[in-house]
């Protein structure tokens, strides 16, 4: 079966839903559809806790938000994109307010803002500590108002149909029935989120498997800055569940095994009893996670069954503040660690959290493939450069989701119908799924085994600190794993809700994404932001003030080149915190 639409969103998280509404509003005549492998309100955006940045406070300015973002990125972002971002973020957050998002408020009824890491002013809007949950449900519920938005819930996209440099649709599996269908479209926007699951220990949901990155990469679009992976300093030791940075913004302290606020030893300022912006616990995430590794080296951490940990101390904040501003943190600690942060220390360790890199796009979300757009965590515009600031990515989903939506709507209004060649491509993909996965009789490799080995390989080679040697070894191991994936067995032969097939498809995607991360890490012979090479410990603006771009060659090998960074007003400088 083939169905057709004008604009197709792949992904129904924050970025996808924002884009869908933007299209419906820009041109109600367009036939818009959202394909999502989970019901939209289950998308990973739902887990975001801390908040969304947008300068609105009287003492704040767009320039300051831009400067914090640029310096936070270690000068690797594109400053034109950052300027557009900080300018549109407050408007987008207000729009969400008008749609009903339950933002936390000041006593006078105005929206309240809180501090966040790496930000010099209080500018992070929040809905207690369930910001992503409230944003996503507000967007989803608002999207229900637009009859023109059609949804394919629980459909898994396996391929982009590209001919002659233009995208014409996708192939997707309807999980409920197992049918493989073609959905043609004049424009496609990838909003498939991040790829935390390529690592063994992550805050990300099980669905964050980098599908969109792999889809674009295989279709010929380059991935940008894939070496930049953010570790969040405070994950719960066993589950990797995030304890939001808001806990530190409200005044939480990081303590080593001696009860000492160790961040003062890492050029992040001096401790003060109340939080100081851009200082100590409110430094940027890359620096805090790196400080943890140094503490491990100094033997100043506590051992746990899950490896070394430090502690986050919220006790001095008191129950009332914790219950009003951080209720979810308390709920999560009680449930998953059996400790009460009102009276006890929270054990934490750094955890993979966010992918700064992604599908290369311009400031309107356009990729080099005609009609193909990307927005949200899957994309790299780039406003995040070498290190994203907390609370910048939810507004990024809104700003660039809306921009990509409008741009795709314009493109779709003039694009023609898909060429016949597409049908053959789609038929090939159906055959591939049947032959290589569903009806394969000679497979002997297990999805979960290869997945675990891949995750360990990526962690060992592209962790918080990296070396050329380990990265090169990682590339070799990943290649072997890709070979072994060719012999994977899907034991489940049912058509109905075959989650083993999904797991295999996700693994195939992650293997490509993993290779891109490690290859890009090998290419960048310097240390910048979240990419720290112990064999090249300094930042090297001479050679690497540039984005990496990784392309796939027709023979399935990869090729790297680079793209200069756009600098408008803030020449590269030193990143200073705590001063």
């Amino acid at each position, binding site marked *: 079966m083939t169905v057709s639409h004008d604009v197709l969103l792949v992904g129904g998280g924050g970025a996808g839903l924002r884009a869908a509404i933007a299209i419906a509003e820009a041109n109600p005549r367009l036939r818009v559809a959202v394909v999502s492998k*989970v*019901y939209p*309100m*289950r*998308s*990973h955006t*739902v*887990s975001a806790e801390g908040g969304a940045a947008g300068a609105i406070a009287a003492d704040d300015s767009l320039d300051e938000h831009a400067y914090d973002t640029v310096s936070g990125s270690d000068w690797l972002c594109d400053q034109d994109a950052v300027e557009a971002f900080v300018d549109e973020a407050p408007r987008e957050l*207000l729009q969400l*307010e*008008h*749609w*009903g998002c*339950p*933002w*936390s*408020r*000041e*006593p*006078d*009824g*105005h*929206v309240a803002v809180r501090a966040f890491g790496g930000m010099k002013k209080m500018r992070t809007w929040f809905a207690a500590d*369930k910001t992503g*949950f*409230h944003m996503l*449900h507000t967007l989803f*519920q*608002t999207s*229900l*108002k637009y009859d023109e938005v059609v949804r394919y*819930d629980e459909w898994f996209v396996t391929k982009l149909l590209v001919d002659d440099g233009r995208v014409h649709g996708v192939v997707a599996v309807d999980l*409920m029935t197992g049918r493989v269908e073609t959905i043609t479209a004049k424009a496609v926007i990838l909003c498939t989120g991040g790829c935390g699951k390529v690592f063994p220990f992550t805050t990300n*949901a*099980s*669905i964050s498997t980098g599908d969109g990155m792999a889809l674009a990469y295989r279709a010929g679009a380059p991935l940008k800055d894939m070496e930049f992976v953010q570790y969040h300093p405070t994950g719960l030791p*066993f*589950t990797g*569940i995030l304890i939001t940075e808001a806990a530190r913004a409200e005044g939480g302290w990081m303590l080593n095994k001696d009860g000492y606020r160790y961040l003062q030893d890492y050029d992040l300022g001096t401790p003060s009893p109340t939080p100081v912006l851009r200082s100590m616990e409110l430094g940027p995430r890359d620096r805090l996670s790196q400080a943890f590794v140094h503490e491990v080296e100094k033997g100043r951490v506590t051992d746990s069954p899950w490896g070394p940990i430090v502690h986050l101390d919220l006790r001095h904040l008191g129950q009332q503040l914790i219950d009003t501003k951080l209720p*979810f943190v308390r*709920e*999560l600690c009680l*449930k*998953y660690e059996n400790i009460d942060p009102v009276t006890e220390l929270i054990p934490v360790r750094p955890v993979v959290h966010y992918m700064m890199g992604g599908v290369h796009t311009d400031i309107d979300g356009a990729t080099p493939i005609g009609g193909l757009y990307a927005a949200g965590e899957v994309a790299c515009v780039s406003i995040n450069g070498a290190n994203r600031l907390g609370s910048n990515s939810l507004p990024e989903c809104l700003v660039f989701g809306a921009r990509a939506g409008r741009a795709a709507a314009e493109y779709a209004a003039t694009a023609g119908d898909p060429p016949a060649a597409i049908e053959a491509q789609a038929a090939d993909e159906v055959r591939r799924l049947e032959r290589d996965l569903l009806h394969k009789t000679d497979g002997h490799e*297990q*999805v*979960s085994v290869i997945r675990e080995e891949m995750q360990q390989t990526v962690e060992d080679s592209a962790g918080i600190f990296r070396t050329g040697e380990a990265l090169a070894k990682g590339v070799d191991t990943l290649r072997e794993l890709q070979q072994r994936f060719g012999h994977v067995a*899907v*034991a*489940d032969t*049912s*058509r*109905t*809700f*075959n*989650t*083993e097939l999904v*797991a295999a498809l996700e693994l195939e995607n992650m293997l490509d994404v993993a290779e891109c991360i490690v290859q890009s890490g090998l290419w960048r012979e310097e240390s910048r932001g979240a990419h720290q090479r112990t064999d090249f410990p300094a930042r090297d603006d001479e050679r690497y003030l540039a984005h990496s771009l990784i392309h796939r060659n027709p023979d399935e090998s990869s090729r790297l080149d680079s793209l200069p960074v756009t600098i408008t007003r803030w020449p590269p400088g030193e990143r200073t915190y705590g001063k």
Partner: protein
Amino acid sequence: MADSIRLQVSRYRPEEGSAPTLQEYDVPLRKEWSVLDGLNYVKDHLDSTLSYRWSCRMGICGSCGMSVNGTPELTCGTFLADLAPGPVRVEPMRNFPVVRDLVVDIGDFMDKLPRVKPWIIRDDEPEPDGEYLQTPEELDEYKQFSMCINCMLCYSACPVYGLDPDFIGPAAIALAERYDLDSRDRGARERLDVLIEHEGVWGCTFVGECTTVCPKHVDPAGAIQRYKLKAAKESVKAFLLPRGAR
């Protein structure tokens, strides 16, 4: 603590036509492990063909609702150690058609959701430049009803929904109430019309099971009660006044 625990997991494949059967698996019993961790162990190490939904593993995406020893639960927030020594029976949520193994069809709820118009309804005035002011007290009015994660545990526990699938159900009514109580909204009238018609709120007999099982303390039973009151007042008014005067 024993070092393993037995799961009795409901298996069903529509292609095979027959009724669901229970399959047993022994999984490690670790103090941190949720029922979901147990299922993931089965999937990764014992039987890759088991199907179930999950995503966030932190009680917020609403995917992993199942019936655990007969009670609707989020499996990512229910711990094996609390169910020791077992066995632990894991079945699909009741009151929904079973698609496969532990996966149920919630399409009926997804179709009902838009009916209660869960979005801000305003008169036709243009949106203001700034935010609509809303004090913390006004926010508190509806906050509880905005916490629903659509996990469907309440539908699974609801005896009325079990008998009458036309009943719009606890979470949808709670959501209608969430918008009605929002100081920014003017749509209460439209929603009431929807809920009075159809099987809206009338089916509920106040068993309160929905509120008991809700993992997010939404109190859908409270929302239904409030709606019934509103609806009762409305029907009295409708009886006394001609439509235009309402």
